[in-house]
Structure formats: structure tokens, C-alpha cells
């Protein structure tokens, strides 16, 4: 990400075993051995170790490989040439959602996380909103650094910021962060660590980045949902729910909890996903603790007749051994209610609270 943008990074080799690390040391020399996981605070978790010999590199790799950091297993380590660092800075470009502008953040104090820096050294933090149509010019980057004691490194830092901005635009990032951005003993600037948050919506035009994306920590069922294009989260309750739209789904969970029940899942089938009711039902029913099910549809864009058709067809096929309680309103409501009545012999509840109350009682 950074090298093509023209930002120097330390020489490094990726290793998947202690033996590979031992061999790689010959090429890299004195180095840091960094656990490769999509999480921050690796140092605090013991995932970053120093190595001054092939043996130390192998030992550090052996210690890190297989450990878990923030729920992610370490499958590889990066041997990164140790540079002599004179100073550490912080630099990031991010999409400032409330302001709807790209935001450049720079701090003359780097190394720790930026919230701590902002609290400890508020005067060292600079922020600049950039007009997308103009981008970050060298002059604007220079001006942004005004008043900071950066010595002869100022021009090189301004240059690195403009390159980082370019990388942000080229990768469709939501956040691209270098921490630390280091001034090396030889006067050059290098990125010693980088974090990139990809905009999921840009995956289609950034296929190479989407392929690199860290796998999320998902359960087997959640992974099945993701493969089907559904946002499914397994929870620890026993009332399953199927609703359309994130807002209504969250509200259904809230009302289940308000009435004394515990939701078993979050599952959104709104938007373009509303035709996937059949797959969705299979996911909800596969939850091991589920004792009853609430189907709560309130159709705006999502047609309740299409969703009801999918759910009832799947219900007839899967023949689940639990009771189900419907509440259906909105686009396609009359047809949807008829489908549920004809196929399952069930009468949808007028109020979702009543459907939920019935489901909670049935689960007891």
C-alpha cells in the first residue's frame, strides 16, 4: 500500500515458521519480529519481539506463532529490519463522516495510540479538512505543520502526508494510519507500522484489497450468513427473530428484551437481501438454543409478500419443531397474511409486541 505511493518502509520478510525466520535473519539482520494479526496493541499483547541473531529470530517466531491476540490466531510473523529511529510521529488520513470531508491528522508525538497522544499532547496534534476536489497540496501540508518543532524533517513529512493522501484516495480507504511515522537517524522518513480500514462498499473496484482483508471473527453460522450476503450475528438467547431492515431488527431485539426474553440472533434481510428469506430462516433455525421464533416484517422497500413466500416455503420444507409467531405490515401485507394463513394455518398478530410476548411464553 505504502511503497507504491512512494513512502519508505523497512525491509521485511514474512515467515510462517521458526525455521523460515532463522533463514530470513541472514537477509534482514537485526530486526523486530511482528505477529501478523488484524488488531492493534500487538506490542502490549507480546506480539512484537526484538531479534539480534538467527537464534533469537527463530525463538521469537516460535513464541509468537500460534498465540492468540484479540481473538486472532497468529499464523505468520514479519521480520522487519530495525532502523535507528530519531523521532516518532503519527499521521493518518480518514473520512470524517460527520463533516463529510477527508481529514488529515498529524501529531509530532507518535508511537502510542492517537487518543492518548491527543490527551497528553494536545498542542502536538494538527488536523486539516481537505476539499476532495483539490486534494492535499504540498503547500497545505506545509501550512498544517506550521508551529510544530520538526527541524529539518518538515519538508519530508509534508511530502509523506501528500503521498499518504494519495494512497487514501487510491485505496478508497476509510482510514489509513501510519504510527509511528519515523524520522530515521540518516534523516529519512519511513513508515514503521500502517493500519488500513477498507470501505466495504468499494470492494468491487478494489478487488486486490478486498482479497487481503482480514477475515472477521465469525462463528460457523455467521460465516454461512456472510457467504449468503446476510448480516447474521449469533447471540446467547433463545428467541429467534427474523425481521427486515436493521432498524426494525434491532427494535425487535429491544422489545424481546423489554418483555423479559432474550434474543438468539441479529439477522438483517432488508434492502436487496429481502428475497433471501429462505436462506435466512435456515440460519436462524440452525441456532442450537432456539426455542421459538418471531417473524416481524414491516415492508417499505422490502415486499412482505415476497418475504412471507420465502419463509413459509422454507418452513414447509424444514418442518422445524418450534413454534413461530408472525406480525406483518406494510408493502404487500394483504397477500403476505394470506400466504401465512393458507400455508401454515397461522394468524399473524396485529401488534409485534403481542407476537413477541407469545414467543417468549412459548419458550418458557
Amino acid at each position, binding site marked *: 500500500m505504502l511503497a507504491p505511493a512512494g513512502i519508505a518502509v523497512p525491509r521485511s520478510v514474512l515467515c510462517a515458521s521458526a525455521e523460515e525466520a532463522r533463514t530470513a535473519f541472514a537477509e534482514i539482520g537485526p530486526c523486530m519480529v511482528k505477529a501478523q494479526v488484524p488488531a492493534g496493541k500487538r506490542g502490549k499483547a507480546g506480539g512484537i519481539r526484538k531479534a539480534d541473531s538467527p537464534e533469537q529470530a527463530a525463538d521469537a517466531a516460535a513464541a509468537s506463532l500460534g498465540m492468540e491476540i484479540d481473538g486472532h490466531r497468529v499464523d505468520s510473523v514479519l521480520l522487519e529490519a530495525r532502523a535507528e529511529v530519531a523521532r516518532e510521529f503519527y499521521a493518518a488520513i480518514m*473520512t470524517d463522516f460527520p463533516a463529510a470531508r477527508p481529514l488529515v491528522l498529524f501529531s509530532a508525538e507518535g508511537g502510542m495510540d492517537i487518543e492518548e497522544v491527543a490527551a497528553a499532547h494536545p498542542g502536538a496534534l494538527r488536523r486539516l479538512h481537505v476539499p476532495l476536489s483539490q486534494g492535499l497540496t504540498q503547500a497545505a501540508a506545509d501550512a498544517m505543520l506550521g508551529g510544530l518543532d520538526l527541524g529539518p524533517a518538515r519538508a519530508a513529512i509534508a511530502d509523506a502526508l501528500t503521498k499518504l493522501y494519495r494512497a487514501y484516495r487510491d485505496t478508497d480507504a*476509510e*482510514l489509513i494510519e501510519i504510527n509511528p511515522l519515523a524520522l530515521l537517524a540518516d534523516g529519512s522518513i519511513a513508515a514503521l507500522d500502517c493500519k488500513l480500514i477498507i470501505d466495504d462498499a468499494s470492494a*468491487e473496484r478494489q478487488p486486490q484489497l478486498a482479497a487481503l482483508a482480514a477475515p472477521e471473527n465469525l462463528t460457523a453460522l455467521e460465516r454461512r450468513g456472510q457467504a449468503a450476503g446476510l448480516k447474521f450475528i449469533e447471540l446467547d438467547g433463545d428467541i429467534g427473530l427474523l425481521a427486515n431492515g436493521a432498524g426494525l431488527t434491532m427494535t425487535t431485539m429491544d422489545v424481546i428484551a423489554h418483555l423479559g426474553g432474550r434474543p438468539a440472533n441479529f439477522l438483517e434481510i432488508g434492502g436487496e437481501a429481502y428475497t433471501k428469506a429462505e436462506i435466512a430462516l435456515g440460519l436462524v433455525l440452525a441456532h442450537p438454543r432456539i426455542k421459538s421464533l418471531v417473524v416481524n416484517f414491516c415492508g417499505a422497500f422490502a415486499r412482505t409478500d415476497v418475504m412471507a413466500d420465502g419463509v413459509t416455503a422454507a418452513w414447509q420444507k424444514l418442518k422445524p419443531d418450534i413454534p413461530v409467531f408472525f406480525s406483518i405490515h406494510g408493502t404487500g401485507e394483504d397477500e403476505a397474511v394470506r400466504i401465512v394463513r393458507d400455508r401454515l394455518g397461522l394468524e399473524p398478530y396485529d401488534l409485534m409486541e403481542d407476537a413477541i410476548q407469545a414467543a417468549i411464553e412459548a419458550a418458557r
Partner: protein
Amino acid sequence: MIYRKGQRVLVQGITGKQGSFWTGKMAECGTVIVGGVNPKRAGETHLGLPVFASAQEAMARAPFDIAVMFVPPAGARDAALDAIAARAAGLVILTEHIPAQDVLAIREAAAASATRIVGPNTAGIVTPGAGFVGIMPGHNPNIFQPGRIGVLSRSGSLGTLICLNLTRAGLGQSAFIGIGGDPMIGTTTREALAELDADSATEAVVLVGEIGGGMEEAAADYAARMSKPVVAFIAGRVSPPGKKMGHAGAIVTGHAGSYAGKRATLEASGVSVADTPSQIPALLRSRLSTSCR
């Protein structure tokens, strides 16, 4: 943006399945549709309406007030910039999953123009008795009835449920503004609240929010200054917290976003917060009977 009777609407992407379906529903509801856009089918007639190559061409030949986008994410940026270049007064962006940096470009162009944006990822706006723009069941009399309650909602499905509850309770709506579920939207909670405050047909407001972001918190001090009562419902009380940009994100938004924080901020500003959607009508009635008007 509140839809006003007689406002002329252009449908970008009118020839698609959803564009066609909802154009019919909007017209059925009284919305004035002047035509649509599809560059590949310019010059044709679709659903009895003229199809134009661009919003700019449409503005010259069939002037409109509001453009509504039934356009997939990859084409959303260009379609929005076209509507802005056409000097549309309003632009309703229904499209979900538009790349964030495309939304930045749309917002920057709109800021330099007179075009007001609702969305992206909105279900649209409804004025019962006048019409609707978007993908709401505005034509369903069980859900929407003319009245005096203004409703603003991030979610289309939840907004629909709440309007249904209001209608059941005999409380019709002066306007529904679906502001959209994305983190970066053209009309914020605060701006929609201000519009409903300024709307003479609105007596009280229902604010429907969700966990995440800081928009409800940012609207609270406006609500505190309003003479009209505001009742809120915030979805997500028991939901796991959503994705954030970590510490860098917190630099921008602080630690806003939790259910408890939103509820406390709104209540401190005199907003009544309902535990469930079905409590909203009773809260409105008690606030309307005690407010000085």
C-alpha cells in the same frame, strides 16, 4: 426535505424493475412525476412518461423540483452529480452501499450548489395526502394518514412501523422524513428536526434514531430550544456495538453512539424517550396535552 403537494419529481433509473414499480406507487399516491432518466433509452416513453438522457436534459425539457435515484452504487456518483448540475432543488438518494469517497464527492458538489440531499440509503419522504418520493408504503392508508405529527427516521422499516402505530392511535402525520441509515447523509437528524420545527402543519415530532454515530446527540440541543414536543425512540438498546474506526474515529466523534448516552442526552434536553414503539402515541398525547400552544 418535506414533500409538498404538486412538487415535480424526476426518476433517475426509471426503467429498472424497482424504478418502474415505485414510480407507479408514487404516481398512485399523488406524486407528480414528470419523467425519468436512462441514457441508453433516451427518447423512449416508459410508463407513459418521457425518458431523458440526463437530469440536465430533463430540466430543460420537463422541469422538476426533486430527483430520486433508483441507481446502483457504481453509477450513483455520476447520477447525483448530474442531478446537482441540473440544479435540482432536492435529491433523494435511495442507493445503499455507495463507496464513501463517492459520497464525499457528491456532498462537496452539493455544498457548492443549491441542491438539498436526503440520503443516501434512505427509504424516502412521505407527506400523507400530498404524495411520497422513494420506496415507502406511502400509498397504504393503514400506515400513513394526514395529520399533525412529523416523523424523522434513519430506518425505513422502523419508520414504517412507527407511522403504523401512530395511525392506529388516530395520530396522522404531517410529514415523514427518512434521513437514511448511512453514517454520512445529506440531511442529518438535527436538520430534519429543524425542518419539522419550521413546518406549520407539524405540532409534534417523533425522532427515530439508532445506536452508532453522534447524530441524535447533535440534535439534542436543538430539541431543547423547540416549543413543539419531541418524542424519541432509539433502536439498538441490546444490540452489540457496531464497527468503529478505533481511536482515530474517536478523535472525530468522541465516544458518542451508545444507547445509554443518546437516551441521557435526549432526556436532558426535554425529549421523551419511549422504551418500545407502541409507547410513542401515549407519550405524544401526554406531551401535546401539556404543551403550551
